[in-house]
């Protein structure tokens, strides 16, 4: 029992160490990778542009629901005028960075883990190494750097669409004056809130894309699975670990910043 617990702990610590080295090696390869801007551009397109619809839809519905729920809670205290503040602070501080990250994990992260897993399976990653091309620099570094741009941008978009959704619920459906709604938004959101939102988006981006890349890149190490099953297991593992990491990191960042 103790030995099993010890082995489990050692394995987890080794996994964390491996992940840290993987990220360090990938970022270290940035300087030696040729034509990196083009690779980053492609990664921005894959992570950002393709995820636009899901961010817009989820952002809109989140704003709509926040508007409805917020209105009925505030209405009890006769404070409907604070609806803009409630929607904006909920979105900026918590919901936008977390939900946008989870959506990006589901779409871009899972696709990345599966793509790298298939490339590992079909020896494309080994082929890069034998050609003298740093596979970390070529495959992972552009994705990590793109995430540092895409996650904050998608989070900002999520906030904008969510605020609009909140105003649709509050003003169009429930009769809150639009002027009061938007002035409440302006008064409530401070630069500290935006900073917290940005820190979260950057952290979630690096963390989740790093985890998804790590799992896909090492799909051949999945136990008791090979081929398509290993790719499937690596993708599932990537999404589950990334999602937990987002929520855990959110708690840690919030507890330090608030």
């Amino acid at each position: 029992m103790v030995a099993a617990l010890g082995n489990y702990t050692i394995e987890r610590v080794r996994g964390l160490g491996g992940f840290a080295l993987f990220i360090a090696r990938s970022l270290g390869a940035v300087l030696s990778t040729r034509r990196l801007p083009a690779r980053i551009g492609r990664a921005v397109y894959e992570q950002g542009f393709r995820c636009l619809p899901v961010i817009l839809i989820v952002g809109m519905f989140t704003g709509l629901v926040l508007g409805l729920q917020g209105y009925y809670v505030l209405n009890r205290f006769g404070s409907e005028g604070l609806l803009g503040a409630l929607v904006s602070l909920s979105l900026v501080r918590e919901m936008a960075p977390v939900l946008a990250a989870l959506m990006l994990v589901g779409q871009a992260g899972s696709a990345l883990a599966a793509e790298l897993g298939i490339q590992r399976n079909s020896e494309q990653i080994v082929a890069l190494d034998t050609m003298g091309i740093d596979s970390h620099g070529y495959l992972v570094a552009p994705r990590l750097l793109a995430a540092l741009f895409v996650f904050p941008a998608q989070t900002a978009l999520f906030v904008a669409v969510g605020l609009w959704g909140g105003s649709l619920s509050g003003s169009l459906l429930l009769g809150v004056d639009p002027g009061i709604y938007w002035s409440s938004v302006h008064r409530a959101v401070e630069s500290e809130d935006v900073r917290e939102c940005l820190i979260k988006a950057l952290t979630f981006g690096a963390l989740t894309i790093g985890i998804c890349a790590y799992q896909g890149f090492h799909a051949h190490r999945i136990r008791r699975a090979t081929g398509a099953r290993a790719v499937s297991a690596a993708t599932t593992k990537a999404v589950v670990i990334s999602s937990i990491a987002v929520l855990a990191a959110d708690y840690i960042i919030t507890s330090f910043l608030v």
Partner: protein
Amino acid sequence: MANPKTGPLLRVEGLRKAFDQRVVLRDVGFTVERGSIYTVLGPSGAGKSVLLKCLAGVEQPDGGTVLFESQPLDFRNRAMRESFRRRCSFLFQGNALFDSLTARQNVALPLEQTTPLSRGEINRRAMEALRQLELADHADRFPGMLSGGMQKRLALARAIVTHPEMVFFDEPTAGLDPLRRNAVFAMIAKYQAVFGFTALIVTHDVVEALAASSVVALLHQGEICFAGRPEEFAASGHPVVQSFRDSPAALRSTLDAMRKGGALTEEKE
């Protein structure tokens, strides 16, 4: 010490590799002369691909020495590893082509990432390699849109576009029918003559290997048990060589014996 430019290109001494308790390579040693086609034969699971991966630095051997132009290779040394990889190419069993890149982009990839050449020059060289392998008309197609033979040629185009001194071929005919096997070995022999690279092939196709190779070696139980010219291999009395070389004849005599004994007829009934 042998002159690096005139002596053997690759020399392997006492190479060992095990995975956990399973010993794959026990004590492998052989010498590949410059400009030759050296083929390592062996049954499936003999460790041929592991041998090739150890030589290409994909797997780390447990012991032994690999000398390239008389210099011991140490893949942990970054400069040495990069220099070796600039001078050698690897053709994978499954081709390892990038399916999201076109044929031209696949061939251009090693030039784009490892040389400071201009985009125009890279494109010119990639197209030249595609033309030499009769794939110029398919430059803008993706690998998935090409036939198996074309994909093999595309992988070879990518391997030779950097003008390597040595090309490693991992089971280049795996899963192909006899006609395509012949075509692949003919292709290797043809382009080896055109480009002058040294080829190291691992395969289990005896007939094709004997026809196309300068030297043939047999890997058995983790060791090279025979190495010599194809005609020496064909005449060898070594029991392992005989059993590997004469396996079709052995199968025929086994089947004849079974037919005479009625085993096959009974099974049919």
